[in-house]
């Protein structure tokens, strides 16, 4: 496979994942805005911070009304992380990697893009349409993933799509934790007491995991249980450990297929060992914020090493 094609696949799936994550954040924010009209501004600001877009947003708008925030996050082409911008990039990369994609996958991405352009052609005036639009974005993403799952060979092509997906997802979950870590920290006043409902709900909704969390942890949520769920859980598909395991697995497949151990796979093994060496209490003890910061660095380093190892660029 061409290095350029691997690059196209990797980024196509990073952008698909990114678009889905942004849509998820909008969903969480919109839900909060609906249920808590008083603190609306604060909630949207925290959503924008999580997406790493607060500064850009504030440079453009003065308030945190639903309409401009949703517009900025979903359809603003000047915002490189908006759903529309991410999908444009996903499709551009799909075109670059077209020869490595099955017709079904390409058509799913292309049709998603066309539909998205259509439904996001004009600003969303009626806020009742927002849930419908978010549902369409969710369905599109499921269609692409379904086409990948059902039609792609499990070879190096597939490995690069998975790597893109999980590097982006790990980054996303880690950033949510990075922004919200203070909520999960035991402070003098809140030790032993239950968390601010809204805060933890935001966190879980941002990763579409409120239901999964309920299945695994009955009763009142605690900071430590939520942190453990998002960082160390093996089954939760958006937890850091899950992502790191997937990154490891796919790099291992590539090692096997190419008959050599890549430096990126070694970095991934090191990160995995670090994750498995600590309990959630130990993570809290040595500093949650530091842990997340370190994780983001490691993830970034792995992504950079993948780019080098597999010769994405000349």
């Amino acid at each position: 496979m061409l290095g350029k094609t691997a690059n196209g696949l990797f980024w196509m799936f990073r952008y698909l994942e990114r678009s889905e994550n942004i849509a998820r954040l909008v969903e969480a924010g919109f839900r909060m805005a609906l249920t808590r009209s008083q603190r609306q501004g604060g909630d949207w600001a925290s959503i924008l911070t999580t997406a790493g877009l607060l500064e850009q947003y504030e440079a453009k708008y003065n308030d945190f009304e639903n309409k401009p925030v949703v517009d900025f996050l979903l359809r603003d082409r000047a915002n490189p992380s908006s759903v529309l911008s991410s999908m444009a990039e996903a499709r551009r990369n799909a075109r670059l990697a077209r020869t490595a994609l099955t017709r079904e996958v390409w058509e799913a991405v292309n049709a998603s893009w066309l539909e998205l352009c259509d439904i996001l052609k004009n600003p969303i005036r009626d806020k009742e349409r927002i849930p419908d639009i978010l549902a369409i974005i969710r369905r599109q993403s499921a269609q692409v993933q379904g086409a990948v799952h059902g039609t792609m060979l499990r070879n190096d092509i597939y490995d690069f799509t998975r790597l893109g997906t999980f590097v982006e997802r790990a980054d996303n979950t880690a950033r949510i934790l990075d922004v919200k870590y203070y909520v999960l920290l035991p402070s003098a006043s809140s030790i032993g007491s239950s968390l601010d409902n809204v805060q933890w709900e935001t966190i879980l909704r941002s990763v579409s995991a409120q239901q999964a969390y309920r299945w695994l942890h009955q009763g009142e949520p605690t900071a430590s249980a939520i942190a453990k769920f998002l960082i160390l859980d093996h089954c939760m598909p958006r937890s850091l450990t899950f992502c790191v395991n997937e990154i490891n697995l796919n790099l291992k497949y590539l090692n096997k297929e190419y008959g050599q151990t890549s430096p990126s796979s070694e970095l991934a093994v090191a990160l995995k060992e670090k994750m498995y060496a600590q309990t959630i209490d130990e993570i809290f003890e040595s500093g949650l914020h530091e842990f997340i910061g370190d994780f983001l660095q490691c993830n970034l380093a792995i992504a950079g090493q993948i780019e080098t190892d597999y010769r994405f660029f000349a």
Partner: protein
Amino acid sequence: MKFFNEMMADETSAREPYRLYKDWFDSQDPKVLKRKSAEAEAVFRRTGITFNVYGKKDAEERLIPFDIVPRIIGAREWTKLTKGIDQRVRAINAFLHDIYHKQEILKAGRIPKHLIQNNEAYLPQMIGVTPPGGVYTHIVGIDIVRTGENDFYVLEDNARTPSGVSYMLENRETMLQMFPDLFAQNRVQQVSDYPHALRRSLSDCAPKACKGKPVLGVLTPGIHNSAYFEHAFLADQMGAELVEGHDIKIENGRVCMRTTEGNEPIDVLYRRVDDEYLDPLNFNPDSMLGVPGLMDIYRAGGITIANAPGAGIADDKAIYSYMPDIIEFYTGEKALLDNVPTWRCSEADSLAYVLEHLSELVVKEVHGSGGYGMLVGPAASKKEIEVFRKKLEAKPSNYIAQPTLALSTTPVFTKSKLAPRHVDLRPFILVSPNKINITPGGLTRVAMKEGSLVVNSSQGGGTKDTWVLED
């Protein structure tokens, strides 16, 4: 002007090739056809079969209009055409070999020397070079027009990088999906073998450096090129890599592509970039599209380039005017397919005639393609003609002129009924060392505007599925 209608023999009865289709069409509900027509567009859009039109920023990717009425060619008509095409393609390859070697045709005085020597498409870098297998034009598209029951003319030869074959394949694919019953009634020859045939044909021209199964690459200028869809499509269908200049470099005397596992040599490069962009060391030094040093590897037998550099001179419209002589010179036979009568504006008498009859003629740039820079006299305004006259007078040798042909029509489906529109035909021909393979069908281009004679997609033309019936 009276136009030959390919579908209808008279007011009510269809010509033989269209007989079954006409019966079928008459039994259809126009409302259903209208819906299917819209569906076809959605299929093309979803598939991403798009075309970038140069100079139109707002519409980065456009669809070429597709018409659901097939263009049907009878078995006998087709056999006749293929004989002429086969002869012409053999002559073109012999001509190219000759002008880059002994130049017998120039010595014999059948073509003026200056036409070759002062021609930008003639590449001195190719003098004395014999491409692997002796093939210059691996892929050829011959543009053919019809004016009567037995009157076919070659309008243009495309020996450089003919495009449009992906539409031939996708149009058929779409028709098969939408009207399966039509294919049960009519025995239509298949075109779907083209990508395999292309792969085989290119593989048969592998260079001497090739060991084992040839590795193929399709060289594209990139994602913004008007035909990028087609490049990706063909690479995908042939199992070739789709490469750009920055994906390849020279290593150990081979042209290698950068893969995830290292550098791998390419044996055959199906290039979809023009000669001058192939190799900045040997041609245009400002080009970022090509591979520095590619020509040196080519000359040393390290790679096959398809089509061969310098093959484009056969496309030249001034050379075209000599094609009947060229065919006779190399095959010893009279040309089976006619040329359109052509005035070379470089010749004083012809120029005078052309200037006097601009409003009746079609005037084309010698090196032009895609319908750019041409004048269709009968359709042009007085002002357009005067503007063109100045250009022509300034550089007569840059132009040729032809009579405005009474292009045949086939119907398109519009406003729930059939309406005649002018068409041309581009069959695709694959050349390998011992075989000339003509795909039964091709690309039918249709002028969607009533009365228009310009079928180029860049000028709003559409396409049709092209059927060649079995005997």
